């Protein structure tokens, strides 16, 4: 390490030698930086999972364009819109097909009395509303009353239950005064708003939710003809549908709006943003403490070097050398531990925490910047090293 830094810096790596001379301080500093890194990476992991999980249901839709009520912010809010809009949309050239989708939330009571919240999608079994072959393969069965398909990635439910359903033993449960029979499963996974998903036919949906009507779906899924230009169809749809009750968006656009709303308007997004800021502050303060104590401890040596004729930038380079070393040494354990925690969290709460290269490099770069800022503040103490006091 010393020889490597000596080559790199073209001088004695004083910063490294100072840091490694005082092992206890080095370990404390590295632990501090690692902790800050861990905090930031975990917060970003949750944040990324929130943003990522928003996509899951959208990705299931067999659609190119979504028509929703104009007041919709996320998939699960907003008013229903008139089904009439679907027929109007079907008249637009380039539209191959359209199907309504009904959405609601349902409490699924567990044998132990706790509740899993499910996002329920009601679809026309004759239309292909989803891409998922696990759902499409069972559409014929769904057309019978009170039949459902359940998300096997639903949080905090025994895996054995889904295994037995898949093995051919239907599972029944009571809800809303009816008995639902789950005859199959599919894998999507709940996000932050629900534990899992349930798919039923539109007729079953209306029986479960008596106040919902066939004439008022939540979404209209539009499929385009092969070769149709999406932008042109989009423009056409927007022109003919009244914007006081309908909003026309591509699926990607709808996802992007949903993600933006959840991360900027909902507390959950803001909380994680704060977590990141707190992590950065913790790191800044710890590194500043270590570097400024280190400067204070070496006042005499620095004053001597000043007397010998070293300029200010030499001392700056020592402190930045230390800051850089702390950043790298702290990042490595912080990164490794967060990878382990990502895996644990993903397993425990079925939220997909995934480390991306962009996040890893971003946090590493941010750590180096953070340590450098701390170092820059610590260099202010250098002015006190006065070589005239040495005599």
């Amino acid at each position, binding site marked *: 390490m010393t020889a490597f830094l000596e080559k790199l810096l073209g001088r004695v790596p*004083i910063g490294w030698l100072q840091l490694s001379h005082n092992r206890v301080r080095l370990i404390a500093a590295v632990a501090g930086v690692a902790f800050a890194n861990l905090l930031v990476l975990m917060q970003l992991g949750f944040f990324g999972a929130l943003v990522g999980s928003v996509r899951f249901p959208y990705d299931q839709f067999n659609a190119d364009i979504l028509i929703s009520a104009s007041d919709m912010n996320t998939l699960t809010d907003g008013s229903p819109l008139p089904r009439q809009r679907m027929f109007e949309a079907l008249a637009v050239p380039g539209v191959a097909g359209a199907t309504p989708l009904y959405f609601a939330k349902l409490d699924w009571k567990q044998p132990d009395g706790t509740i899993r919240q499910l996002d329920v999608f009601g679809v026309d079994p004759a239309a292909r509303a989803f891409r998922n072959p696990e759902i499409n393969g069972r559409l014929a069965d769904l057309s019978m009353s009170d039949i459902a398909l359940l998300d096997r990635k639903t949080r905090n439910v025994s895996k054995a239950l889904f295994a037995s359903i898949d093995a051919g033993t239907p599972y029944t449960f009571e809800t809303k005064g009816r008995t639902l029979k789950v005859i199959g499963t599919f894998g999507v996974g709940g996000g932050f708003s629900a534990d899992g998903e349930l798919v039923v036919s539109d007729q079953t949906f209306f029986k479960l939710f008596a106040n919902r009507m066939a004439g008022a779906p939540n979404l209209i899924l539009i499929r385009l003809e092969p070769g149709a230009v999406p932008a042109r169809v989009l423009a056409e749809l927007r022109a003919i549908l009244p914007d006081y009750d309908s909003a026309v968006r591509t699926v990607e656009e709808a996802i992007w709006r949903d993600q933006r709303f959840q991360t900027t308007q909902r507390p959950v997004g803001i909380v994680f943003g704060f977590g990141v800021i707190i992590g950065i502050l913790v790191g800044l303060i710890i590194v500043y403490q270590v570097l400024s104590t280190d400067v204070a401890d070496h006042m005499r040596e620095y004053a001597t070097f000043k007397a010998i004729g070293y300029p200010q930038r030499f001392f700056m380079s020592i402190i930045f050398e230390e800051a850089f070393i702390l950043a790298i040494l702290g990042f490595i354990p912080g990164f490794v531990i967060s990878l382990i925690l990502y895996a644990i969290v993903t397993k425990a709460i079925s939220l997909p925490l995934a480390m991306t290269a962009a996040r890893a490099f971003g946090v590493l770069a941010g750590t180096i910047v953070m340590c450098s800022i701390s170092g820059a503040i610590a260099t202010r103490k250098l002015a006190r090293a006065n070589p005239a006091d040495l005599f």
Partner: protein
Amino acid sequence: MDAPAPIITRGLCHWFGEGEAKKQALFDIDLEIEAGKLTVLVGASGSGKTTLLTLIGCLRRVQAGSVTLLGTELAGASETMLIASRRRLGFIFQAHNLHDSLTAMQNVRMGLDVHGRAAAENWQAAARHLLTLLGLEERLEYLPGNLSGGQKQRVAIARALVGNPDIVFADEPTAALDKDSAMNAVDLLKRLGRERGTTTLMVTHDSKILDRADRIITMDDGRITGDSR
């Protein structure tokens, strides 16, 4: 002696403190110190000899009067000029002031690195040579924490001399040294004076060094009161 003296002061005065507490430490010091000689400053503590040393050594700013160091006027000089001037000097302090995370060799190298990469290219040979001259050939890779007080002081002397300074400033450099090492160090300084023209200005009370000095300047209350060669 045609070349100008490396150190010339004219009417040098210095004050410490502000306002009511302002106190004059040096009064009209006129001094010329010849090249290649060992000049010793003596005087009671508080007589101003250290103040004089730090002014000539570019460690304090000149307030009144003039100091010409190696042909450069220090009065009104910029910080950059003062730093550049310091690189032509060697400092030996009463305390060794070694960096305790650096080995003896690395500490000596610090005296060479300041002159840039080219000068430090053969630092190992230069540092080893000087440390050997000072009797530390067996302690090259030791950290200061593992050296005795005298050994540390000898490393500090090597650090001051490795850059081939034109002038060496020393403040009680032999306080931590035993008699033999002290004489060894003084002989080394005198030899550098003869061979390279290195000028040494030293504050000391060590009578054995006074015997070997080329010139002894006595100070009292901020004034020069004696000058014997």
